[in-house]
């Protein structure tokens, strides 16, 4: 018999007590934490997306009169309300850096009057010195006036591609043909040094016949160099023949060679469709183009290429390395104190500051291994103090990042090995498979999805890492991509560009930070997009493998 007193508590529980008993407070706390995290991430992404995506839009040009100064022509970029002694201010991007010494200007809003949007205001994106904002007066070809007024604008648009093409030819000549020639001159010099080294040391007398051949070669190459240089100079002179003469809104005249005009446009006269076209054109240039103006303008293609290539090399190295290590730890090593210590050490490796890995990479990969390779295989270069592998390069940076991310792969692989059912292993062993065969044919395939999860995490971590790269091979501006048309086509010893470093460099090292800000956002957006893209690829691969084998039985 149950007494009725037991069913009735002495005191009715308070609302708070009821709340705690049901665990509602934990639900609210955990839900709130998740909500906060989602909010922060969404906010960050939104900030990056909005700022990154508006970078390419042709905003209207505003002309305005200013009390106590010349009138202004520029893009309205920001306003600031009055604060204490400072009056309300308006910010303009006025461009014309070489004339004004600044791109942006803050003006007290009260001084401004007569806002207007002149249809004939031109924005010129230049190869150098940032944008020019002003009005086209006339076009000169070879020093003679070719067109004035509206005809000048049409002429400008018609002549600009040809002039750009000439300039591009000059650049190509300079970079590719003269570059190749330089490599051959260097080769000839190295042959001389190699012969000297073989004869007993630098400066030793060598076979006069060989010396004569090399000297003749050098002379021929030098002659060829002179002709090429002359051609490049001629091209450069020809390309600047066509010049556009502009005036700024305050009456200064400025001549701009059409060859240095990346694009000229009249934002106030553009329709929506034209603006879209302009937007897409600039976005495409950003993705496919080369950087200009110490990286603050133009494209980031070399950085994209470097980032993707480095991440892929890193994944190719880290995956087998981490998987093999995890298999040994989980399947072969005797589980005891030492293995536990090793496991703890691996987990803590993930907490070592990444710059420490960079320093390790510099000391071990570059100086020790790279220096060793140089001494063993490139004695002539070493004698001339020209390192090949003994300096930062994409291979060493990738290997350093592989070290940095290997704990992630090991941990994920170990987890997925542990999740392979005992039944499947025993089934394999009972059929006469050796332990190795069981691991190879049963355990490894079953743990591939888990391994790929580890690789996804490693890629995400590696692609966004900057600090260790700065001392293992990343540069602000690489002369060439790590893959090109010269033998052996893949140059793992080359320095490279990287989006993460690009963000740091443009955002914090450039002389004109205000102008570079949108570029930083756009680059960040691109880096995030690339990481997402790489991850998506790995996730699709993983799901394919999962679907293939794990259809679920019951």
């Amino acid at each position, binding site marked *: 018999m149950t007494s009725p007193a037991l069913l009735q508590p002495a005191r009715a529980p308070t609302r708070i007590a009821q709340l705690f008993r049901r665990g509602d407070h934990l639900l609210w706390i955990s839900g709130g934490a998740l909500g906060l995290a989602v909010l922060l991430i969404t906010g960050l992404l939104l900030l990056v997306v909005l700022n990154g995506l508006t970078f390419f839009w042709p905003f209207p040009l505003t002309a305005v009169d200013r009390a106590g100064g010349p009138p202004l022509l520029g893009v309205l970029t920001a306003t600031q309300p009055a604060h204490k002694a400072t009056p309300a201010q308006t910010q303009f991007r006025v461009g014309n850096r070489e004339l004004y010494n600044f791109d942006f200007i803050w003006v007290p809003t009260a001084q401004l009057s007569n806002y207007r949007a002149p249809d004939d205001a031109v924005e010129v994106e230049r190869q150098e010195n940032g944008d020019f904002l002003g009005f086209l007066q006339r076009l000169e070809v070879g020093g003679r006036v070719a067109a004035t007024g509206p005809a000048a604008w049409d002429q400008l648009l018609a002549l600009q591609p040809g002039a750009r093409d000439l300039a591009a030819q000059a650049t190509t000549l300079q970079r590719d043909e003269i570059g190749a020639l330089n490599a051959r001159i260097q080769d000839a010099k190295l042959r001389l040094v190699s012969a000297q080294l073989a004869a007993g040391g630098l400066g030793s007398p060598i076979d006069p016949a060989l010396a004569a051949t090399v000297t003749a070669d050098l002379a021929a190459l030098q002659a060829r160099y002179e002709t090429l240089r002359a051609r490049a100079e001629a091209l450069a002179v020809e390309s600047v023949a066509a010049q556009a003469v502009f005036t700024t809104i305050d009456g200064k005249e400025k001549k701009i060679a059409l060859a240095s005009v990346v694009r000229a446009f009249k934002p106030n006269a553009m329709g929506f469709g034209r603006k879209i076209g302009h937007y897409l054109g600039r976005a495409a240039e950003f993705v496919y183009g080369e950087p200009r103006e110490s990286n603050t303008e133009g494209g980031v293609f070399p950085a994209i290429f470097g980032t993707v290539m480095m991440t892929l090399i890193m994944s190719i190295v880290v995956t087998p390395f981490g998987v093999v290590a995890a298999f040994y730890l989980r399947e072969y090593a005797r589980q005891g104190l030492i293995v536990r210590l090793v496991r703890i050490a691996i987990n803590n490796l993930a907490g070592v500051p990444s710059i420490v890995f960079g320093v390790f990479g510099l000391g071990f990969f570059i100086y020790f291994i790279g220096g060793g390779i140089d001494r063993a295989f490139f004695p002539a270069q070493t004698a001339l103090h020209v390192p090949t592998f003994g300096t930062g390069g994409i291979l060493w940076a990738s290997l350093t990042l592989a070290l940095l991310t290997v704990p992630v792969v090991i941990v994920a692989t170990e987890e997925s090995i542990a999740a392979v059912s005992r*039944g499947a292993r025993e089934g394999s062993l009972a059929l006469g498979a050796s332990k190795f065969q069981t691991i190879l044919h049963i355990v490894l*395939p079953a743990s591939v999805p888990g391994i790929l999860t580890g690789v996804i995490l490693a890629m995400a971590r590696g692609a966004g890492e900057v600090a260790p790269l700065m001392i293992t091979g990343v540069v602000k501006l690489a002369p060439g991509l790590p893959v090109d048309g010269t033998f052996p086509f893949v140059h793992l010893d080359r320095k490279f560009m990287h989006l993460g470093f690009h963000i740091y460099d443009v955002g914090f090292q450039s002389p004109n930070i205000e102008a570079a800000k949108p570029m930083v956002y756009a680059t960040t957006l691109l880096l995030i997009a690339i990481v997402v893209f790489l991850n998506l690829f790995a996730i699709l691969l993983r799901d394919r493998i999962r679907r293939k084998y794990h259809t679920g039985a019951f």
Partner: protein
Amino acid sequence: MEPPRPAVPPVPLPARPVVAVGPPAAVAPPPVKLRVRSVNFFYGAKQALHSVSLDIPEKRVTAFIGPSGCGKSTLLRCFNRMNDLVDGARLEGTILLGGQDIHAPNLDVIELRKRVGMVFQKSNPFPKSIYENVAYGLRIAGVRQKSTLDTVVEKSLRGAALWDEAKDRLHESALGLSGGQQQRLCIARAIAVEPDVILMDEPCSALDPIATAKVEDLIHELKREFTIVIVTHNMQQAARCSDRTAFFYLGQLVEYSDTGTIFMNPANPQTEAYVSGRFG
């Protein structure tokens, strides 16, 4: 307190007559396939088997019955040395397979496991296609020829009564099969390498009655070619399928005899109590 059970009626007769399955007494006994002599088995300090000796006849079904923890699975796993995988496991005594000591130091365990196949309690198909599951044993033995593999896969699936259900989906994942089909696939996988002995560790404990009946029919078929040792908790199953039955209790072999004798006329009162359901 458990209420006292009512008096147990005589063992209910199994569905199929046992007598018809067992070998007639007059015929000479079949040759011995596995000879177990004075086997003591230890998991670390704990002794799991106490001086067990028995002979397992060739091409017959031998059932091991007994309550959980009595050592029957342990003995079964000694026959293909699966206990090697357990840390601290140790065996004394001898087990002879066709006259050969399977715990001899120079014995090739991989070779032994090819001769002594095993089917587990929980069906454990590999996460591969049905075809690859059956071909697995041959592939790891180095068979590459497609025609040989095809022949063996079909023969084994037919042998495991799975061919008709699986022939149109040979290259689909084995994990898409039903539980009973998966267990028959594991049997097909075991017979593909043509072992001498098949060990079955409670093969039907996770199956429904229909799937169980199919596996039991299969066992009847298989004993024409293979020596079968089956561990089961289901006494009707032991009575239906087996020719010989061994009753284990607390690591000791209590009674080992023809199945008919064990169920109808056991010599040991403990056996009688167990098979009649009074304990266990």
